[in-house]
């Protein structure tokens, strides 16, 4: 009940902002919904955006279960894309797709995990706070990528900082004319995998124990340092898959800022999905629909921009995260009155 009330509060505030701008909120809502779900094409876009949100949402959720707050999804996704892109650029002339695609996916996971491993190591062995270090690493990732794209990986003769295009064997099968590609299947597999891992393996059990009560985890024989590394590497690998969807699925080359905003939105997705893979999936679908519907809305009404979606994401984080307890007294009063 509480999550739905929190979302409703977020949307009421958005409605007020839309009204302040001078647009009828109900018209905006109708345009948003038809823009997200009104045609097969728009549903395809919604699912494509939802794929990214699933990856970053799962990434935040896995770390949350271990009691770690990974705000570095942004940088891990960026590096994941770099890993995936480097693997393809190195091998796409020689390997067939069925061999190259798994290698590139593994490279994305490896690079994303490696970028998360440094803050994890600093937390586990040197006691530096993971929130601060993952934030810092987002900026370092961004500086690194700009350097690599401008100076090293830029395609010869290109005016914009992007790599050469991937050969067909380095491109994921996609639905013709849509950005929706095989990454969606990877996202669904990740949901299932995270569920199995967290609730049906001894490591997942130890990971969740560490998140609930580190002392109990130590008593149970868990090595907290190694578990911190495991949780963050998994988290980083999941975030890194954004690169698979964006670069191998859509852009077919390495570009700058393909990950922009997805890492942070993952926090909202995880909060809304209550850190459960199924919840994350549902929240990701909602966020995908918002992203696509918001784009259509901005197209229809020029005084509203796409950034309205960013406002909604911020409000959802606020109301279902930081202010989650706000409506509790009201609900308690409501149910207390109903009960005899």
């Amino acid at each position, binding site marked *: 009940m509480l999550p739905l009330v929190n979302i409703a509060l977020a949307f009421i505030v958005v409605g007020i902002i839309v009204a302040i701008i001078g647009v009828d909120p109900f018209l905006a809502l109708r345009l948003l919904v038809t823009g997200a779900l009104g045609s097969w094409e728009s549903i395809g876009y919604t699912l494509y955006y939802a794929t990214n949100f699933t990856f970053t949402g799962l990434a935040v959720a896995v770390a949350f279960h271990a009691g770690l707050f990974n705000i570095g999804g942004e940088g891990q996704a960026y590096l994941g894309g770099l890993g995936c892109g480097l693997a393809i650029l190195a091998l796409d002339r020689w390997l067939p797709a069925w061999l190259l695609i798994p290698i590139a996916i593994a490279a994305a996971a490896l690079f994303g995990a490696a970028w998360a491993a440094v803050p994890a190591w600093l937390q586990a062995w040197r006691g*530096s706070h993971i929130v*601060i270090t993952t934030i810092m690493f987002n*900026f370092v990732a961004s500086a690194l990528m700009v*350097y690599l794209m401008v100076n090293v990986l830029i395609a010869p003769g290109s005016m914009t900082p992007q790599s050469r295009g991937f050969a067909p064997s380095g491109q994921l099968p996609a639905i013709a004319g849509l950005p929706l590609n095989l990454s969606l299947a990877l996202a669904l597999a990740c949901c299932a995998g995270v569920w199995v891992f967290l609730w049906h393996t001894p490591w997942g059990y130890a990971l969740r124990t560490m998140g609930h009560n580190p002392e109990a985890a130590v008593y149970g024989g868990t090595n907290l340092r190694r578990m911190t590394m495991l949780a963050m590497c998994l988290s980083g690998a999941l975030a890194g898959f954004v690169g698979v969807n964006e670069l191998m699925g859509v852009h077919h080359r390495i570009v700058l800022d393909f990950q922009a905003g997805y890492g942070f939105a993952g926090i909202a997705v995880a909060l809304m999905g209550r850190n459960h893979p199924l919840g994350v999936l549902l929240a990701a679908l909602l966020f995908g629909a918002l992203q696509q519907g918001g784009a259509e809305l901005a197209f229809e009404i020029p005084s509203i921009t796409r*950034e309205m979606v960013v406002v909604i994401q911020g409000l959802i*984080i*606020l109301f279902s995260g*930081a*202010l*989650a307890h706000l409506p509790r007294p009201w609900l308690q009063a409501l149910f207390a009155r109903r009960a005899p």
Partner: protein
Amino acid sequence: MDEAFSFVFLMLASTLRVATPLVLCAMGGLFSEKGGIVDVGLEGKMLMAAFFAAATASVTGSAWAGVAAAVIAAEALALLHGLACITYRGNQVVSGVAINILAAGLTVVLGTAWFARGGQTPPLVGDQRLMPLFLPEAGDNVLVYAALLSVPVTWWIVARTRFGLRLRAVGEMPLAVDAAGLSVAWLRYRAVLLCGLLAGLAGAYLSIGQNAGFSRDMTAGQGFIALAAIIFGKWRAWPALGACLIFGLLDAVAIRLQGVRLPGLGEVPVQLIQAMPYLLTMFLLAGFIGRAVAPKAAGVPYEKER
């Protein structure tokens, strides 16, 4: 000789220009963190303040109205942060992240709706901006001096006043403050509001002092660099100022070194220098350069026993 002097002067001026918003923001964050409230949302507060400063200055024609609007906007977000973290005992990092995202979106949404310039405000001229006071080529507007003044004032308040003592206590051990009969919540709200005030000034400096108008995402991570400066300064005012000046100097150097080949080193990537504040802070946090210890109760909501 004259050339060398003017080079040093220009470097110093440009260091100070870049460091000003960092110093203001870092002093604000210092109050908040000393009081036990972690503030990841400095960036968002500064961005929102920058937008409202430029928007108000361009509509009213007065830079001072812009400064006032900036402070009000930042205080509104500070109150929101306080409401979430103090009154409702929510997660302080989550609240800060929410404020950053909200500000990033809302500034563009409102900017586009009001000015129809793709998120920018109209360029500001004349009295709509804060002008240099004494040295036109150095850009020393009133907020530069406010930033320099904020450091001794912050030090004095935190280290030498009754409020400062209580503030530090509430950041280290709120239970003791509560037992002494003081309100933990009211002390923390004051800390958060001081933070909002200074972050608001920092934002105003960006859009109506250093630049002539607001552009989207114009804070570009400076709120996080200020956060890094607080950590680098080990939660003390003067060392934090030092960190801000080092980071400002790095930025000034980065601009100068663009495309320059250094003897023996070759071309230093500008991106490496830009990433230095973050890398240095990571090294510090890892314990390779001394030890940085945060206020003990920072990030922990205080729950009064029933």
